[in-house]
């Protein structure tokens, strides 16, 4: 709103409001909202996609989504550092679908380069990437995540024939996410399963300050996961270039307690 009303760039400012539920009414609304966005894009580009265009785009994006899911499924067999793994995961945000598939399938297989006690990482974004180096240096390795820029973007495929239904289905079926109002119980259940399946010793929630969707969940995650014997560390760090020594010390101490 600030961009559109006050900054007023030369480019049109387009918006998409994702509904906060998974009800039939949310789905109907999202389909209409996607139609609206598509209409605006068609106006701006002067081009209306054909059925073949849609199919080609879906084939490419579904392949990229599968490659992302495969990355996560294969991570214990990839001979890469945690940092390299997440650089590749994050490239899904800016590479074309085809280029991402190339990048994801091009990672070397073998024993993971990072060893040590397993951690699950949660939060919105895990930056700076130096974070992963410091976790490895401290004797830990990331075995799974619940990051908004990571595993929460593994959208399941949809076999709906209508393109807008297909996009809506994928978005609404994505993993639990507090930014979309997912019930806390769903997130706790998902994390509990993830910790069990990966053998993780602890959960690190890595948040930026003032991020309310995450901050409201933290005490409940700590309590519910504590009931199942999973220790949790909550670290807040600015999206700056360098990790603060305060954050580093806490991460090192946490990994030490898990060893």
């Amino acid at each position, binding site marked *: 709103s600030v961009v559109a*009303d006050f900054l007023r760039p030369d480019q049109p400012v387009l918006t998409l*409001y994702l509904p906060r539920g998974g009800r039939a009414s949310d789905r109907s609304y999202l389909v209409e909202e996607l139609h609206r966005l598509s209409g605006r894009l068609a106006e701006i580009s002067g081009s209306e996609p054909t059925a073949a265009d849609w199919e080609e785009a879906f084939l490419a994006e579904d392949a990229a989504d599968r490659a992302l899911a495969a990355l996560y499924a294969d991570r214990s067999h990839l001979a890469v550092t945690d940092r390299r793994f997440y650089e590749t995961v994050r490239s899904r945000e800016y590479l074309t679908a085809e280029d991402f598939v190339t990048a994801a399938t091009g990672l070397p297989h073998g024993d993971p380069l990072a060893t040590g006690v397993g951690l699950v990482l949660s939060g919105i974004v895990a930056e700076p990437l130096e974070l992963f180096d410091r976790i490895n240096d401290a004797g830990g390795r990331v075995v799974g995540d619940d990051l908004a820029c990571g595993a929460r973007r593994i959208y399941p495929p949809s076999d709906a024939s209508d393109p807008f239904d297909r996009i809506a289905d994928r978005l609404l079926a994505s993993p639990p996410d507090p930014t979309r109002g997912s019930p806390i119980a769903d997130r706790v259940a998902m994390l509990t399963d993830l910790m069990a399946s990966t053998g993780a010793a602890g959960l690190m929630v890595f948040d930026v300050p003032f991020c*309310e969707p995450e901050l409201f969940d933290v005490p409940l995650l700590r309590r519910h996961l504590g009931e199942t014997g999973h220790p949790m560390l909550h670290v807040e760090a600015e999206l700056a270039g360098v990790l603060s020594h305060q954050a580093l010390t806490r991460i090192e101490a946490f990994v030490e307690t898990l060893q």
Partner: protein
Amino acid sequence: MNLDYLLRYRLAGTAGLRLQRWRAEWKHSRMRPDPDRPLNPPLRSTIRMREMMSRHYLEGRHVAGVRPVAWVTSGAPTEILKSMGYFLVYPENHAALCGARRHAEGLSVAAESAGYSRDICSYARTDLGSVLTGETPVGNLPPPDLLLCCTNICQTVLYWYRVLADHFGCPLVLVDTPFLYQDVAAPHQVAFVRRQLEEIVPIAEAVAGREFSEQEFREVVGRAKRASDLWLRILERARHRPSPLTAFDGFINLGPIVDLRGDQRTIDFYEGMLAELDERIDRGIGAVRDERHRVLWDNLPIWYRIGPFSRWLAERGVNIVASTYTHAWGELAEMMDPDDPFEAMARVYLHPILNRSTGHKLSAMRRMVDEFSIDGVILHSDRSCKPYSLGQIDQRDRLVNDVGVPALLLEADHNDPRSFAEEQAMVRMEAFVEMMGS
């Protein structure tokens, strides 16, 4: 009928409150304008408002098991629940009351001790602190049988109410209102909200054990419309010079239109308040004895400083005559339509100022500067309320450069006094007042 409810609330409680009101009204009748005081005697109506709200919270202490209880957000479409006999608790109003009575800091600390970040909304921290400790200045709050959360005031309420749902183990009903970047809601947005309103009904029926009546719903909507219209007319009386009320009167007397919207007593109360204001206008009585400057307030009030601010400003001849916050509960009255309640309420609950663009808020402020003969604007940059505060820098710049009024960006927090630097704030306020005078 529950005996505790009958004896302690219906009989003894309401009688006691009525006695308190008579005593306060008698004291008020003996007040005379004092040339040494910057403010004229307060509105007599506020005494009745205090009785109404005290009675509401008193009922809350005894209502569990007598009426179904719902905790609701301040922008929620409560008319459906009200028509089904629900007792409504507004955690935001309760938090504001805690803020005004200086209890909020302690409750926030309790929430923070339980792991809730100091960076989350101070209303939420106050409420969660109260829920976790059981402490409240109103005695006790009845636990909810149902939670109703509407995102038209912010997304924070969704995260907050998810925590309440986890704590209380009761159903959480969500009314998700898409943000309006454009002037008017699109058909698919209205349809989405309307459908969600209709979806409230079966859940509310199951919890209450009572059937929804469209007729009763229409009647409640009709009363809500009348009360909202009265509230808007009350606020618009501040266009007069001198204004018979201040925005602080608005903040304090907001309770009924928020918490008791849809009740006949709310209509009766605001009719009385409007008559009192008209009497003041006829007699040339302003709220501030020597009104020299008229100010618009943007954002929530600073609850723990209402009294001191009001006096400080009045001493300098400044009357805050209007606020975007209080207007929010009146400006949509014309949209309410009891003849087509679901469709109309879907539009109403999509269009509150906080669910609309930053450009719309600027337009609203520009209009209010003109309509209320404003000499300056205070934009409260509220640490806890990001949606209300985002865009204020740009709005402020345009008010100064395009409209030509002094505009102060005042950093504080609506409920947490730890985020208010008194010295700094008052120095800036002093400079702002001087600017209006020059």
